[in-house]
């Protein structure tokens, strides 16, 4: 008799599962349609609630009337807790929109304001520029006893890439797609295979247990990575999503996507064991996915949250996947530069699979 091949059995399951996934409307809607719709909608809305983030150089004279006027302006958000080095980097990325440095002069005019803008954020730089002009007009006309102006502006602009909203929203949408496919898809499939005795029938064949799990996981992985590739391509060609190192960046993103999906599938395995029937899957899955969907920087940067909320988002695995995705995609980081994020994802991997192994049921 021909020797029995677990590998072939695994592939047979993967093939069957893949066919089943692409014929299941919910899988296609959640993994492809929703993320694309969100991308289209948000890419057209753009950023919301304008504030201009302005870095304040350490050498700034914080008692100068120029600084006080800026501090009083509502649209300006002054950042004082970054080092000069950090600030320079943030500026190039467009994470802050400008850096100011107000210096007191011994000669006339008494104050000089050095402003550095960034090409990465020209729009907001423009807002700041007009704001500064109006402040200077006021200050200088107030000092009417002195013929010379109180302060002068010296401007420079640093080189940087333009950070578009698509660069923020697309990695978030990828994360969302992986999260829902991993959690909902896996939980539903394994629960229904168990309840309809498909798995039991499999056990009457020579197939090994690990082949069943591996085959299912393989199918979902292939499906989700093809989906991710599709989303990246649409984002890149239709909305100008930035891929710094081209194909290398795409590959790095897909590696991250695979790691993320494997972790999210762990949640799915655990849920399929906990849920008693199919109607119990959505509530439990939502408890897992909704907080991550909202708090992991899918739609807005987590820095916009109050501190206590940030503390929660700093625990969630999707936060780190999104973070790593954005670093890789926009900043062109290699996988070795996101080891911090990968490490935390690794901890999640161990945690969730420890739970999944405990709760998973075969019949």
């Amino acid at each position, binding site marked *: 008799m021909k020797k029995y091949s677990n590998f*072939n059995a695994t592939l*047979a399951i993967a093939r*069957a599962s893949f066919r089943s996934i692409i014929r299941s409307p919910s899988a296609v809607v959640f993994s492809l349609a929703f993320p694309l719709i969100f991308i289209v909608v948000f890419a057209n809305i753009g950023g919301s609630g304008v504030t201009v983030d302005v870095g304040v150089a350490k050498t700034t004279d914080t008692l100068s009337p120029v600084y006080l006027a800026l501090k009083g302006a509502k649209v300006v958000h002054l950042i004082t807790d970054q080092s000069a080095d950090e600030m320079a980097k943030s500026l190039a990325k467009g994470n802050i929109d400008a850096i100011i440095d107000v210096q007191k002069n011994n000669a006339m005019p008494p104050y000089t304001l050095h402003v550095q803008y960034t090409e990465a954020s020209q729009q907001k730089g423009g807002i700041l520029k007009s704001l500064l002009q109006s402040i200077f007009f006021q200050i200088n006309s107030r000092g009417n006893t002195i013929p010379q102006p109180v302060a002068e502006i010296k401007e420079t602009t640093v080189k940087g890439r333009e950070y578009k909203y698509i660069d923020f929203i697309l990695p978030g949408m990828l994360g969302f797609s992986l999260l829902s496919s991993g959690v909902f898809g896996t939980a539903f499939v394994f629960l229904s295979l168990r309840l309809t*005795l498909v798995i039991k029938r499999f056990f*009457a064949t020579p197939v090994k247990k690990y082949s069943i799990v591996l085959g299912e996981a393989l199918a979902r992985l292939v499906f989700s990575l093809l989906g991710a590739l599709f989303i990246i391509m649409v984002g890149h060609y239709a909305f100008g999503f930035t891929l710094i190192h081209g194909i290398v960046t795409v590959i790095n993103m897909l590696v991250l996507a695979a790691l993320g999906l494997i972790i999210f599938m762990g949640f799915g395995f655990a849920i399929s064991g906990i849920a008693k029937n199919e109607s119990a899957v959505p509530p439990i899955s939502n408890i897992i996915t909704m907080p991550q969907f909202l708090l992991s920087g899918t739609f807005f940067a987590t820095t916009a949250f109050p501190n206590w909320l940030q503390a929660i988002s700093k625990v969630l695995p999707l936060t780190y996947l999104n973070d790593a995705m954005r670093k890789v995609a926009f900043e062109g980081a290699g996988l070795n530069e996101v080891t911090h994020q990968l490490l935390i994802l690794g901890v999640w991997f161990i945690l969730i699979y420890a739970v999944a192994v405990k709760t998973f049921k075969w019949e």
Partner: protein
Amino acid sequence: MAEKPIITVKNLVKNYGDFNAVKGISFEVYEGEIFGLLGPNGAGKTTTLEIIETLRDKTSGEITVDGFNIETDANDIKQVIGVQLQSAGYYPNLNLSELIKLFCGLYGINKSPMEMLEKVALTDKAKAKYKDLSGGQKQRFSIATTLINNPRIIFLDEPTTGLDPQARRNLWDLIREIRDAGTTVVITTHYMDEAEELCDRVAFVDGGHIIGIDTPNHFIDELVASGFERKKQVKLANLEDVFINMTGKEWREG
């Protein structure tokens, strides 16, 4: 018929916690026969079957299937048996020929889906989904999946439950064909007319014990010899004969 045992069960016991589902049963199934396990619900039929099918662990006892010991050679047993579970479903969203391909992969066997579907007269449903089949078609498809690995023995757990008389007869014919091709068949059923018609030998199971094993004819003769008589005079035909006579033997695709 040469009475060569292909399945031997000795003192099989199965406890679920405090509940004793199977309390030390022994029987043999002979090669090439249709063997019926009969008994009321909860008698332990399905449990016994699933233990022989390697799907459930026994508490104690000895079982050999086609010369393989259930404890040490479970994987060899899986290769030589075909199993139809009571009310089992199939992988969602796949059509019949894709499902057959999946099982070919699981058994590590290369067979064309059409060849298998032909055996159960379902070639015209090759592209249909399992859930869209009629009751009789579902059962015949289930039987097709048990035949993929050319098994020595197949196990059918209540295959005719819920079928109309025509579909039931059609399935009996199929099961006899399988037996005639040399495969041993172990079947459970609640229908005594079916057991009488189909089974070469039957075992009655009740309360976790086997309370009798013999051919259906012998059981009936024994009972009659003991002076038993039906309350109602037996006529030469029954209502099912009327039904078949009026609606025809032709099996309808539902």
